[in-house]
């Protein structure tokens, strides 16, 4: 093997290890910013292309259902269907944005709306990229929500975008409370994309399947009362000290397109803004 290849490999390995070491010491902004200048505009463009392609594909599938009709009617049906699809897509988007706007207006904290331009869904990292960044005064650890509940927190802020760590990320933890029983616990993400409620005191917990779990507000990172999920399965470990449970997330992270970033500070209870949080 050529010496040049080995030298190149050694250099690459050394660069990676230096990068990793610098990040563990907190010196990451420079390198990630330089890369973000390249990646963010391309991600935005690709997200637009992706949405257009998915839209065209959906339209094509709808069209397949009217093939049996005669030529004139089919042409007419296709024309009407395309129009209807455009209208229904617009109406759906309108409804989504109205819900987001209603939440934004009712929220006692300053918020910033954002659009998702990329998703990392591999299992190692579960994150969303939002088109709001340092230029919009987004800070690290900013809470990110949707009308249905909590999405996660900002873990990296770049010039034109922010990376949001989703609740189902394996490194994500959130302090929560079960609304019906007021039992405190911690929700963690799991590699399989589910949520796990841990460390609920066994005595007097009495949780049931379907119970709503909301943020506890402890630590000051998230406002109190934002829905996190509902209990799906209770994991009873006999005489163990703590109760465990699997949760169904309140938000469908794979389908969310618009989000709100809570940029204001202060300990607030926002349970009243989410239907069902005051069970």
């Amino acid at each position: 093997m050529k010496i040049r290849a080995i030298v190149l490999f050694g250099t690459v390995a050394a660069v990676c290890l230096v990068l990793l070491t610098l990040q563990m010491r907190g010196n990451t902004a420079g390198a990630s910013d330089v890369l973000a200048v390249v990646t963010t505009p391309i991600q935005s463009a690709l997200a637009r292309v992706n949405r257009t392609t998915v839209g065209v594909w959906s339209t094509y599938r709808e069209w397949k259902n009217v093939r049996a009709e005669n030529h004139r009617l089919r042409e007419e049906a296709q024309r009407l269907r395309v129009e209807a699809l455009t209208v229904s897509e617009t109406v759906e988007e309108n409804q989504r944005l109205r819900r987001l706007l209603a939440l934004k207006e009712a929220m006692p904290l300053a918020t910033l709306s954002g659009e998702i331009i990329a998703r990392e869904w591999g299992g190692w990292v579960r994150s969303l990229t939002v088109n709001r960044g340092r230029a919009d005064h987004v800070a690290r650890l900013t809470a990110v929500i949707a009308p249905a509940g909590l999405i996660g927190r900002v873990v990296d802020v770049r010039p034109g975008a922010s990376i949001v760590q989703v609740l189902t990320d394996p490194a994500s933890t959130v302090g929560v409370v079960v609304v019906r029983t007021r039992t405190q616990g911690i929700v963690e993400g799991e590699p399989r994309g589910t949520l796990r409620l841990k460390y609920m005191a066994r005595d007097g917990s009495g949780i049931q399947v379907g119970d709503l779990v909301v943020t506890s507000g402890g630590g000051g990172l998230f406002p109190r009362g934002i829905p996190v999920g509902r209990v799906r399965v209770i994991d009873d470990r006999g005489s163990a000290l703590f109760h465990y449970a699997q949760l169904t997330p309140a938000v469908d992270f794979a389908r969310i397109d618009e989000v709100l970033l809570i940029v204001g500070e202060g300990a607030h209870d926002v349970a009243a803004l989410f239907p069902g949080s005051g069970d």
Partner: protein
Amino acid sequence: MRTFVAVAVFGGGIAHATLGPALRIADVAPDIPLIVVVLLALRRGPEFGCGAGFAAGLLQDAASGGLLGVQALTKAIIGFGIGALGGRLRVSQPLVQVPGLVLLTIAEGLARFSLLKLFRFPAPFGELMTYVVLPQALYNGFLGAALGLALAWAESTRTRTS
């Protein structure tokens, strides 16, 4: 050809986070940059494989918000290793390509887990292997073999027409 290679490495690294979720089957997404790196390393040798792996991995790290350098290093290792061994392996058959890519994905997963463990990655090994690495390895195996066949077909068509 050089432009195509540059677009494949550069675009693959960034497009993974944006377009990858569209290819999900039962919440499993393929690691397209890894497949691209393996295919390029087999054709162009260890130097190119190492460089392509580093570039694609670094862009993936940047796009996903993970630690910069983790995937850059693991993919550079895979690209270098496959480029170095490629001449001695017969990898033109799908029966070799599928298990080969499955094993490479598992190897990359193990290398990534070991590296991340040094930086206090909290996820348990068993769950990661069961729910993330193994399903993705299978997906990569079949998708990579299909891409390899498509590439071979395109090359043979080009040779015939020229």
